[in-house]
Structures are given as structure tokens and as C-alpha cells.
């Protein structure tokens, strides 16, 4: 694996407030990353730091092997679509699509046209007059058609309806398969995107609390369900992340189980179910005791 961005010991303070706290992680080449976390966790700040838009208070960032700040060479491989992207005064969508190729050498105009049709984006209306969803559609279209080696989508689908979001996910996967590149998707709609993600980076209060492949993460915990006594006997002495009881039945989330343990559970008549990415992340970003577990995993 090659890293297109390598972040080590990165900190960002705004006065007394520590927005990013000694973060270290890598963005791997040709991989779809989920940058997940609650609102205000530091996702946007991290992306602004990686793209040279903001300045680090400590630590280092290498973008394509170079310092990103004011680095035209490194930044020319980056497209960063923000949640509430600003557009030049009096621009229409057609102006965005006309000018984008000057900045992205890999821009695919025919693909952009198909996306415009998919999202039913009016090209000849002032951007100021567009709906929230149409505004987001412009960003999504630019992010996809730019084919930039490194594309950041920061909550790109504000106001997009379920159909439009599905179109975005589908097009992203298709295009990624035919034009592999590095994608960082920041979102709090975790379940919706979990099938897309190959790597997951979770940030909470400025700290990286999970940095793992999505597959490892999904296997890092299971739900064990069955009669309460049987479940209690099975989970005794294990890391219990969450416990729910209903009458004589119990459902307990436990840390990673080995193959032998899984078959033992099956023999005991217990049901095993995977934990969704969303549940895992909610558990790791809500309480401190859970945080310790996630760092161990």
C-alpha cells in the first residue's frame, strides 16, 4: 500500500480550543476512505489541513510526499468538495462545468453531462436560485467528473433526497471501479455509506479513535443473542460493549470472537450477528470507557 497522504502527530489549536489532537494516520492510494465522526469532531478541519487550506499547529502532513501548504504541484492532484461549497457571484452550473477542466486534467466532460442528467441539474439557472439538493448535486458532479487522484467529499449530499444519494453512491462505485483513485468521504450517514468504504477513520473530539480496514472493523465485534443464562455464561469474562435484555432473552455485543469461539457459541444454541458499522462507531464515540476498547481493537 502506498500512502497519498501521511499525517503524523498532527495538532491544530484555535486559541484555547484543540480541534485536532496529535492525530496520526495515512490515506492509502486507490482506496475509498470514510472519515467519520460526530458534528464538530474535527473532520472538516482535518481535510482542510490535508489540503493546505488550514495551517497545522504541530506535527506534519505529507500530501503526495510533500508539504501541502501553498504547494501547487501537490495540490493540483486534489479536489475538495465541501458541504456548503461557495461559488463565484452570479455563477450558473454551466460556468462551473466549463471552468472545471482547466483545473483537472483528467476531467471527463461526457461523464459530467451524464451526471447532470442523472441529478436533473438545471445548468442555466443562477446557483443562488438553486435548491439545497441541486447545490449539492453540483459539488457531487464536479467531485466525480474531476477524476482527481485525491478527492475529498465533505458531507456532500446535504439536501439530496434518498434517490439522489443512491445515484451518488452507485456512480461513485462504478466510476471508482473503472478509474481507481483515492476518495475520502466524510459523513455522519454511516450506514448508508458503509458498503462503499474500504477503510474507516473515526475522529472524536479531535482524536483518531479508529483507523482500520472496514472489514477488520466489522469483524471486531459481534452480537450474541439467546436465552439470558446461556448468553451470560458465554460472555462471562469477555469485553462486553453493550447489553440489552428483554424478558428471558439477552443480546450482548462482545469484542472479536475466534473461529473456535464462534462454533462454541453455535453449539450452545446462541445466535451470532454482525454489528453494523454505525452501531460500532456510535458505541466508540459516546462514552469514555468504550473508547478504551476501540483503541485496543
Amino acid at each position, binding site marked *: 500500500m*502506498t*500512502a*497519498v497522504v*501521511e499525517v503524523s502527530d498532527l495538532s491544530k489549536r484555535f486559541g484555547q480550543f484543540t480541534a485536532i489532537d496529535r492525530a496520526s494516520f*495515512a490515506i492509502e*492510494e486507490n482506496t475509498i476512505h470514510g472519515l467519520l465522526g460526530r458534528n464538530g469532531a474535527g473532520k472538516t478541519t482535518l481535510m*482542510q489541513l490535508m*489540503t*493546505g*487550506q*488550514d*495551517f497545522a499547529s504541530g506535527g506534519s502532513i*505529507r500530501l*503526495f*510526499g510533500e508539504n501541502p501548504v*501553498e*504547494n*501547487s*504541484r501537490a*495540490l*493540483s*492532484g*486534489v*479536489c*475538495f*468538495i*465541501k*458541504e*456548503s*461549497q*461557495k*461559488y*463565484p*457571484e*452570479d*455563477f*450558473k452550473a454551466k*460556468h462551473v462545468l*466549463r*471552468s*472545471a477542466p*482547466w*483545473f*483537472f*486534467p*483528467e476531467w471527463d466532460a461526457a461523464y459530467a453531462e451524464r451526471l447532470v442528467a442523472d441529478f436533473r441539474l438545471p445548468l442555466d439557472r443562477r446557483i443562488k436560485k438553486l435548491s439545497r439538493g441541486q447545490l449539492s448535486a453540483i459539488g457531487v458532479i464536479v467531485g466525480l467528473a474531476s477524476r*482527481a*487522484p*485525491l478527492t475529498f467529499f465533505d458531507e456532500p449530499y446535504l439536501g439530496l433526497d434518498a434517490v439522489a444519494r443512491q445515484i451518488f453512491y452507485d456512480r461513485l462505485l462504478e466510476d471508482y471501479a473503472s478509474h481507481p483513485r*483515492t476518495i475520502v468521504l466524510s459523513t455522519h450517514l454511516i450506514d448508508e455509506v458503509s458498503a462503499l468504504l474500504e477503510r474507516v477513520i473515526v475522529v472524536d473530539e479531535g482524536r483518531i479513535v479508529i483507523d482500520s480496514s472496514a472489514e477488520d472493523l466489522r469483524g471486531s465485534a459481534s452480537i450474541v443473542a439467546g436465552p439470558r443464562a446461556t448468553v451470560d455464561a458465554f460472555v462471562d469474562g469477555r469485553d462486553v460493549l453493550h447489553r440489552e435484555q428483554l424478558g428471558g432473552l439477552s443480546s450482548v455485543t462482545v469484542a472479536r470472537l475466534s473461529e473456535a469461539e464462534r462454533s462454541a457459541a453455535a453449539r450452545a444454541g446462541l445466535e451470532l450477528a454482525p454489528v453494523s458499522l454505525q452501531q460500532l462507531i456510535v458505541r466508540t464515540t459516546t462514552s469514555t470507557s468504550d473508547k478504551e476498547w476501540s483503541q485496543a481493537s
Partner: protein
Amino acid sequence: MTAATLAEASPHRRPSSGSRVLAVFRLHFVNPGTTIVIPWAILAFIFIVNVAIWALIFAAATSPSDRADAQEGTSWSGAATFLFAYMSVVAVQAVNTTFPFAQGYGVTRRDFYLGSSLVFVALSAMYAVGLTVLAEIETATDGWGFGAHMFTAVYYGDGPWFVRLGLFFALFLFFFFLGAAFATVFVRWKAIGMIVSFGAITLVLLAAIALVTLSDGWPAVGAWFGSTGINGVILWSLVPTAVAAVTGYLVLRGATPRN
């Protein structure tokens, strides 16, 4: 992960900084309505209205002395001055909205500022040429047949066409870079930056006025303006223009686009 593998990461096509500057330049012109079409259209409208007014005055004021008075009055015409304020606004918007947009495209602050400055210079040149041509026509037709002034008003200085051209050019540069400099302050420090910088400028001006007053320097100041003349004052404006241009860059270099 070693440094060697990092350096080889994703060998994307890396355009030169020059081509990024050019891309920013073109970006400002992709929608030419606001910067070119609308200002000329407004100017054309104002011109037509003025011609109508001159014709009315000409018809009403029949005695030669009244006519001379009216013609003299038009040399203080402010009809074309909106263009300069308009260009300040163009510069403000260029920095305030186009800068965050361009940063999303991976454009550095330096490339953005260079590209935008080239736009300001190009627009200054275009408007200076336009106004010079109109001023020359105005002179050649004896004020459009009415002895009127719109493009040869006193504030634009006086002289042969190339002097007029240079003066218009300098005036436009002043308004563009002043607008851009204030916009960079806003982009970097938002409203608080504007308040502080306006406050600071007010204090500096006040201090200058106090200094001149206390040292009985007003006659000297008046004498300087008298001997420098309007042409000279416009030329001197190149100094604050240059200061604004450099300040704008230094301020923008530390700015982060925020929502």
C-alpha cells in the same frame, strides 16, 4: 512507510504553476456578464440619459452665457465615476467568493492572487482604453455637440490621449487593489477584521490631520496639491495601490476559507 514510497505516490499529471495562474485568470472571465457586459451597459444607459439632459439644457438655455455656465458645470460630471466603485465591488467579490471556490480546486493562495491580479490589470487596461477612446471622441466632437463633459471630467486629469490612458489605468488599478485588499482582510478575519482595519485607518488619518494642523502645515499641503495637479495626484495613487496589492497578498497568504 518510507519516504521513497511516498515520493512515488500517485504520479498524477502535475501542471506548472503558470498554467494554474492562467486557469484562475480564465475562471474570472468564464461568466463575463458581471465584469464586462453589465458595466458597459450601465455606462451606455447613463450616457444616453446624459445626452438627453444636455439636449434639454441646450434647448432651454438659449443665451450664450447660460450655455457656457451649463457646459462649465458638466466638467464636474460624476456620470462615469460609478465604474470605479463598481470595479472595487468586482474585486471584493473576486476574493470573497472565488477564492474559497478555487481553493476547493486545489489552487494555492499564491496562484489565486497572481491570477486575480492579472485580471485586475487586464480589466483596468480594457476600461482605461474604453474611457480614453470616449474622452477623445468627446474632445473631438466638442462635447458630443453640446460642449458637455462626461469622460473628460476634471477628476480624470487632462492631457494628450496617452496621458489620459495612463491616468485612467492608474485610477482603475487603485480601485481594484483597494477593494481586493479589504476583501482579503474580510476573508481572513471576517467582520472583526473589517472593524479593526477601518478603525486603524481612521486613527492613522486622524493622526495625520492632527500632525498637519498642529504644525500649521495646511498651506503646505494645499500648495503641494496645487503644484502636483490632478495628473500628479493620480500618479501618486500608484503608491497606495502598490501598498494595497502587497498587503492583500500578505493577508491572503494566511487566510483559510470558511463557511
